[in-house]
């Protein structure tokens, strides 16, 4: 737990109050890495359909513990074990969802639902809100400044053709 705490601190992530145990399984043979990088040292190899406990997610990598050892594995090598259905009505608990609070499970927002199928079929326009929305639009120059402040660098890559 202390180690978890340290990792969270290092990543600048908020601490989780509720450490819900999250599990997943591998969909192929998967290397456990010492760090969240493909060229990091391989500590062990998980077989297909191995069960793992999720500790933390960072981008495309997930920190796990398992019978075969602990370390980092690629997120898309894992699938959720549960669909959440058994967790009941209030059970918007979700694997992989670290959320803003750092706690696992879907955060239920307070407020009005709206946007049901029926709502959409009988919708009437709200021009005032549309006018308000225009005020928040930003210019290209503003967006470029926002990217600079965030240290975002443009990359060149093509779309992947449909397979």
């Amino acid at each position, binding site marked *: 737990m202390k180690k978890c705490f340290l990792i969270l601190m290092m990543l600048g992530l*908020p601490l989780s109050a509720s450490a819900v145990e999250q599990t997943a399984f591998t969909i192929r043979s998967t290397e456990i890495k010492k760090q969240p*990088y*493909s060229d990091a040292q391989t500590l062990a190899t998980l077989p297909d359909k191995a069960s793992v406990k999720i500790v933390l*997610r960072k*981008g*495309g990598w997930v920190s796990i513990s398992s019978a075969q050892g602990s370390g980092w594995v*690629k*997120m*898309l090598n894992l*699938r*959720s074990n549960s*669909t*959440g*259905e058994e967790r009941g009505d209030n059970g*918007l*608990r*979700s*694997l*992989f*969802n670290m*959320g*803003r609070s750092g706690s696992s499970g*879907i*955060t*239920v*927002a*307070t*407020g*009005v*639902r*709206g*946007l049901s199928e*029926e709502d*959409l*079929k009988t*919708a*009437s*326009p*709200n*021009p005032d*809100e*549309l006018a*308000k*929305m*225009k005020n*928040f*639009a*930003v210019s*290209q120059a503003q*967006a*470029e400044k*926002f*990217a600079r*402040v*965030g240290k*975002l660098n443009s*990359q*060149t890559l093509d779309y*992947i053709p*449909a397979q």
Partner: protein
Amino acid sequence: MYKRTILVTGLVLAFTGTAAAFDFDWQKALKVGGETLQKVQAANKTVDEAQEIELGQGIAANLLGTSPLLDNNRVQLYVNDVGRWLSLHTERPNLPWQFGVLESTDLNAFATPGGTIFVTKGLLMNLSNESELAGVLAHEMVHVLSKHHLAALQKSARMDLAGDLANEALKDRAGPILDKAVKAGTEVYARGLDKSDEFEADRKGIIIATRAGYDPYGLPAVLQMLDAANAQDSSLALMFKTHPAPRARLNLLDKIMADNFDNYRAPVQTDKRFLAALAQVK
């Protein structure tokens, strides 16, 4: 409808030898069928950008009629900053892109023709960082770039509406034909798009987010979250009804991304400002 027109025309041709035995004018039928066909084909080509934007604004006003904007200027501006930056990495950077957070607690996101994108407060609150937000917005933006809703509308609308669109009737702003198109257009959001359009939005969305400097795994992470969520929950009902299963979408991205996206990382500054911008949202 398009297919049916061809079918009817084909049937008429098949009976030309014994036309006298049928009491309808096959020549007239052929002519009408041909004209309708032309109209529909024209509709797919001649809805110009101004009309596309006009239609999209009408639909956006309707969506806002079902849920107002979240009353938080900082969050609205922040989402516009992320979205506008993404738009500069697309093939249509000069559309009047605008982004809005809806007050709704549902988990969903929408795109309307011409560049208006919505994300709900319910979804936003379940995202972890700016790269995930970028992934969601980029997915929606592909629907605009590829005119998916326009195509869905034209496919589903009655012939006269498709014909009206072709007649540039939308230039007559706020006319009854525009109203009709907006209403039919809004209903597309209750039905959803073709699955192939959704997969295309995922496939291209990750590229747009990566081009803009974000973590390519933002969108896959959101899909993992949705895959593990309770599919019976009512706040996910419309999204689950109108999209392919999250697991199918994950499997597709898994296949196309392979090991080719391992070396992209989002700057930590973006994680920090995401948390700061959303701190007041409840």
